[in-house]
């Protein structure tokens, strides 16, 4: 039973003398600070964008298709002209595309769980939530990239940003802040579901009705009363109104405050829940 001596020692590739040397040299440097730890995990997120750009493209492609399709196909019918509809739709597409990207925070965390990477991080002498905080912060870069794609496409199609550069930046910022809050809900989902695909499906299943039953595509006053009532309280409507106002040069303070408050509530509820679940994972 121990007759498996088929490989000559010369073939082995790890250099044992070097392994010894590496072990002797493995002294422990001073422990890095919490911020440095989080930034290192943020860097990991950047590397993932570099190595797996498909993830970003996938979720950005849907809003891009929506933007093209809705503008040119339905724009005339819905708003009288494609140009008018683009003015209405583009801020909503910005919201939609960034919200879709936030689902990936949960998918990525679940992937780490199922691949055992979380176990390695949890066995390190680091601040335990650092991988979570770093990943969510790193995801902000994805949000900005997705925003840039939608905004640039909109400008090419003829979108007129009356709020100017500051308005566009402010709109992107508020959408990113809201998505940061929402991404904690998806990381919670990522820790309770069994597989990355399940996280993605459930995430989009929750997000789709909220996105469609908002004022992203149509003005709510054309809807039946009961639906209008829902659309009016949907936080995504408030976020869209905020982005529309900021990009269009007439910002609505009420919607902006509600959007920021929603982001705060989402973070306050789901960030501690995520951390709690992660500790026990």
């Amino acid at each position, binding site marked *: 039973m121990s007759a498996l001596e088929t490989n000559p020692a010369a073939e082995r590739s790890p250099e044992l003398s070097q392994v010894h040397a590496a072990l002797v040299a493995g002294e422990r440097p001073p422990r890095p600070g919490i911020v440095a730890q989080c930034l290192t995990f943020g860097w990991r997120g950047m590397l993932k964008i570099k190595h797996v750009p498909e993830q970003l493209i996938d979720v950005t492609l849907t809003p891009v298709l929506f933007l093209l399709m809705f503008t040119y196909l339905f724009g005339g019918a819905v708003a009288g002209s494609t140009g008018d509809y683009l003015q209405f739709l583009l801020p909503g597409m910005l919201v939609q595309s960034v919200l879709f990207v936030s689902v990936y925070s949960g998918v990525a965390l679940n992937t780490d769980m199922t691949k055992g*990477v979380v176990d390695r991080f949890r*066995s390190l002498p680091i601040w335990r939530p650092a991988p979570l905080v770093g990943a969510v912060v790193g995801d902000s870069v994805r949000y900005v990239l997705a925003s840039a794609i939608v905004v640039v496409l909109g400008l090419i199609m003829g979108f007129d940003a009356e709020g100017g550069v500051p308005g566009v930046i402010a709109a992107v910022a508020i959408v990113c802040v809201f998505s940061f809050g929402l991404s904690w809900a998806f990381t919670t989902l990522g820790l309770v579901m069994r597989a990355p695909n399940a996280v993605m499906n459930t995430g989009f299943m929750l997000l789709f009705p909220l996105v469609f039953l908002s004022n992203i595509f149509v003005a709510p006053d054309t809807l039946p009363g009961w639906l209008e009532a829902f659309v009016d309280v949907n936080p995504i409507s408030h976020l869209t109104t905020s982005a529309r106002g900021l990009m269009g040069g007439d910002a609505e303070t009420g919607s902006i405050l509600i959007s920021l408050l929603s982001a705060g509530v989402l973070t306050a509820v789901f960030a501690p829940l995520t951390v709690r679940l992660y500790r026990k994972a």
Partner: protein
Amino acid sequence: MSDSPAIEAEGLAKRFGDTRAVDGVDLSVAQGAVYGVLGPNGAGKTTTIRMLATLLAPDAGRASVLGHDVVSEADTVRSLVSLTGQLASVDEDLTGRENLVLMARLLGHDRAGARERGNELLEAFGLADAANRQVKNYSGGMRRRLDIAASIVVTPRLMFLDEPTTGLDPRSRNQVWDIVRALVGQGTTVLLCTQYLEEADQLADRIAVIDHGRVIAEGTPAQLKASVGRGSLHVRLLEPDQRARAADLLGEEAQLEPDPAGLSLPGAGAEQASAAIAALVAAGIGVAGFSLGQPSLDEVFLALTGHPAEEGEAEQVAA
């Protein structure tokens, strides 16, 4: 402090729902050696390791690692140990180099130091050529080597290795074994969980046999083998067709082996063995080879648990 045992566990227990995954494990592991934890799938090995590595809080019992309690001093324990899990827990989307630099940065190396340490390890583990390839394109053996390299970015005092060679080809397996021996040679204590009897036999200085969440035997490989008494006569025939006749000749105790030309006679001494071989030859049955030796750990396992060790592909143990 440096005299404390590497691991001391008393009555460690963990249940998941109705399943007692670990049901009162006692362990005492001295520093500076390989301690094998041997058991079939689902015996509770991974859950035990996860409790010792501070990933999972025990329901009952206590454990300390190098003198530090795994619950109340978890952070200190984490700075002394490293874990190489069953799944080769490296980031598949990143390159080998990026994985090592990530670990080095998290452990406190500055940018240049992390890169230098990464290169040193890539070189030592024969991964320099693949340094800039994404890990998803690595072979199982390369992935496992990278995993171990990531675990020694800072040389740990104690290393947990959970089934390090499951699913590896023999060559990669031997490489991993060499690395484990190098680790121990340098002074690191290794807790090795395995379901492969040969692996425990090859590497471990002491072995705990674990089954259904309990330690059912403990000792050196030689002690465990001696505990089941004498060894077996193993015979390999020239013609597999003649095996049934050979088994008849050797009597009721003869057992057929997985090898279609192999059979064995447990508990045979030298006299009985020579008589058996002579009988086979006299009956015109060609013998290709035979051996008389200590009992294998397989036989030890069978004797201890009443069931053979399952050597199938590892199922991920729920945790």
